[in-house]
């Protein structure tokens, strides 16, 4: 009696998995077709343009436009603004020498973070690479100029820096 009950209970636990298998076999080819194994992103950018219009930035909204000259041996950072005086702008200038490991992008991010902290409305950076600079280096510089990785309480945070990028050329 006891044995037959045990046997019945054992049989009842066996689930019919065939319909689930059928569903999986149908889903997998569909998902395989729609799967993206190579993830592609984009960096929005533009060329500098000249307009006849005057600046629509209010004087109380102090913002600076950062100019970054990328030379083979160094990064030359400077700022321009319609509101700030020359002395203040000169204080924002910085030269970052290239190290054995390449451009010091950490230092660049720190310098840009400091400018952003002082002038929160700023969002535009004009990058002027030298003709000989490799495209990969330009992309890495744009990455460093876009966001700053900050570590707070052991957690990495990303603060936006200068998301509007204008690519020009060092003349």
């Amino acid at each position: 009696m006891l044995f037959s009950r045990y046997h019945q209970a054992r049989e009842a636990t066996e689930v019919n998995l065939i319909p689930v298998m059928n569903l999986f076999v149908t889903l997998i080819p569909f998902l395989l077709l729609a799967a993206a194994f190579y993830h592609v992103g984009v960096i929005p950018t533009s060329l500098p343009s000249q307009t006849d219009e005057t600046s629509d930035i209010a004087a109380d909204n102090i913002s600076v436009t950062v100019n970054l000259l990328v030379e083979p041996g160094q990064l030359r950072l400077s700022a321009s603004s319609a509101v700030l005086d020359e002395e203040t702008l000169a204080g924002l200038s910085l030269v970052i020498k290239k190290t054995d490991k390449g451009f010091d992008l950490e230092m660049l991010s720190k310098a840009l973070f400091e400018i952003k902290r002082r002038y929160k409305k700023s969002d535009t950076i004009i990058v002027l690479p030298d003709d000989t600079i490799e495209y990969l280096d330009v992309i890495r510089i744009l990455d460093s100029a876009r966001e700053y990785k900050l570590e707070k309480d052991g957690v990495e945070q990303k603060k936006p820096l200068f998301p509007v990028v204008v690519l020009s050329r060092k003349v």
Partner: protein
Amino acid sequence: MGMLKSRRKIGGKKMALQLTSLLDMFTIILVFLMVSFQSADEDFVLHSGLELPGSSAKSPFKTGVNLAITLEDILVEGAKVVDLEAGGKVPGVYHEKGKIDSLVAAVENRLKGLKRKDGEENVVVIQADEKLPYKTIHIVMRSAAYAGAYRFRLVVEKE
């Protein structure tokens, strides 16, 4: 018949196929594929002859005129427009002019054929090899600007 019976029953027990481990495997594959699933159908073909630079960029993809710059040539929508010199350099004659005439014409033609909403800007999607000198990238962007496209999307490999 006797043979069939012996296959189905061994020692008086009914044989059943063990699907549990197969189902486990399918579940893992299904989860992986669902994560990689991309529903948006972009009108964009990645050129096989170039290596994209890696980036942390997260901007959404926007369609436009597809322009590829490899170390050998420049292509607009997959059609070769200009041959490049060794190292992906644009011939000096184009730098003197400040633009690549054939590229300007090709981008202009493509822009005419694009359907855009009112007020929508012309966008050029540039996929360029990571080893290219910036001089080449700049003259390509400049030529696209001559054709009437001032907004660019630099295609990168997401890191």
